[in-house]
């Protein structure tokens, strides 16, 4: 039981553990020894667990806060280098976030329809909307591979009230839409051989046409943002490396008096994260 408690104590930050770990362990052992019967021992275990859950976050936050304060003091001694690193981080993180939003909207998120990969667009065959719609409706009834269809235009208005030369229809097919493109074209043309049907594409193809240019710009900006991020990483590395080289003497003493290397690594990492946190907020 004591061994289990010792393992659980690893939740506490290293500084607190080194200072009070043995005392904590000893108190738990005293409580456990004094407990009478199984029920009381279980209670002692549960109380220790609760105590750990309540107090460990506070100790972790306290050590983190101490490291951050120390890092701020160190970085304030070199305002120009720190300012440049922060600015680079802020720009890079802002740019990356912005680019991801655009990428997400244009490329990653799918169309706002149910199963958008099954949509086909038949474009602009010049029929009267009323008769054209009736013709396409009968065509839709005859062809079992079409699941549903709808006239489509960039401006929404009642088709029955407006005469127009061209109408765009969107149909949802049962299965892979690319295989049905010729069949769709033939079927629409079958209603009136004089009607030119062109630009028959799946909606995914149409979307790819529409986003080709933004995609190009996005890719270009993505490279720039990647470059900015690289610069920021180099800046953060430079600041951290400079800080460590300045404190080589202090770190040497810490290790010489028995500071575990893992703890020194953790301290350097947490202190280097201070400008990154500021950069993230600014970005």
């Amino acid at each position, binding site marked *: 039981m004591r061994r289990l408690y010792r393992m659980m104590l690893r939740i506490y930050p290293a500084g607190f553990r080194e200072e*009070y770990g043995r005392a*904590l362990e*000893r*108190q738990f052992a005293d409580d456990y020894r004094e407990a009478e019967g199984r029920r009381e021992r279980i209670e002692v275990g549960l109380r*220790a667990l609760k*105590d*750990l859950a309540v107090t460990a976050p506070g*100790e972790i936050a306290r050590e983190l806060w101490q490291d951050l304060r120390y890092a701020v003091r160190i970085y304030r001694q070199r305002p120009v280098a720190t300012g440049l690193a922060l600015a680079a981080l802020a720009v890079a993180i802002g740019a990356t976030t912005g680019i991801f939003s655009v990428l997400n909207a244009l490329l990653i998120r799918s169309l706002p329809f149910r199963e958008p990969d099954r949509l086909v667009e038949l474009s602009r065959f010049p029929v009267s909307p009323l008769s054209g719609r009736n013709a396409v409706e009968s065509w839709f009834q005859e062809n079992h591979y079409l699941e549903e269809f709808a006239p489509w235009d960039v401006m929404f208005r009642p088709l029955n009230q407006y005469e127009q030369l061209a109408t765009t229809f969107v149909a949802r097919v049962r299965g892979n839409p690319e295989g049905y493109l010729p069949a769709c074209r033939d079927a629409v043309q079958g209603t009136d051989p004089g009607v030119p049907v062109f630009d028959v594409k799946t909606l995914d193809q149409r979307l790819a046409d529409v986003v080709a240019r933004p995609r190009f710009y996005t890719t270009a900006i993505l490279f720039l943002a990647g470059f900015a991020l690289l610069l920021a990483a180099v800046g953060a590395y430079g600041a951290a490396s400079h800080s460590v080289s300045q404190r080589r003497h202090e770190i040497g003493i810490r290790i010489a008096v028995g500071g575990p290397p893992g703890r020194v690594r953790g301290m350097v990492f947490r202190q280097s994260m201070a400008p990154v946190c500021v950069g993230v907020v600014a970005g």
Partner: protein
Amino acid sequence: MAKRDRDVAELLPLPPPMFHMLLALCQGERHGYALKREILRRTDGKLNLGAGALYGSIARMVERGLVEESAERPDLHLDDERRRYYRITLLGRRAAQAEAQRMRDLVQQAEESLGLPETI
């Protein structure tokens, strides 16, 4: 206000476990577990500090200079070398007095507003 009083005022209000520990330490040096037992006794078992809460509070009090670790040990037959003993500092004593005064003022205000009965 003198600097000394300002230092004490910044520490108030003291969290109850800290106040109880300072009161217990006013009567002499104690190790952590003895502090826990003393607080249990003083509060009729109501304040049962876990190890993390106890040593967390001790760590804060050492940081703020309210208590310090004692190098002296009690009589050899009473001592347990593995335990660490703590004693109250002058600042700790003043902070405990100031906290007691703060509580007395609070009780006085409550008495004036509520009219506290002799016993509850």
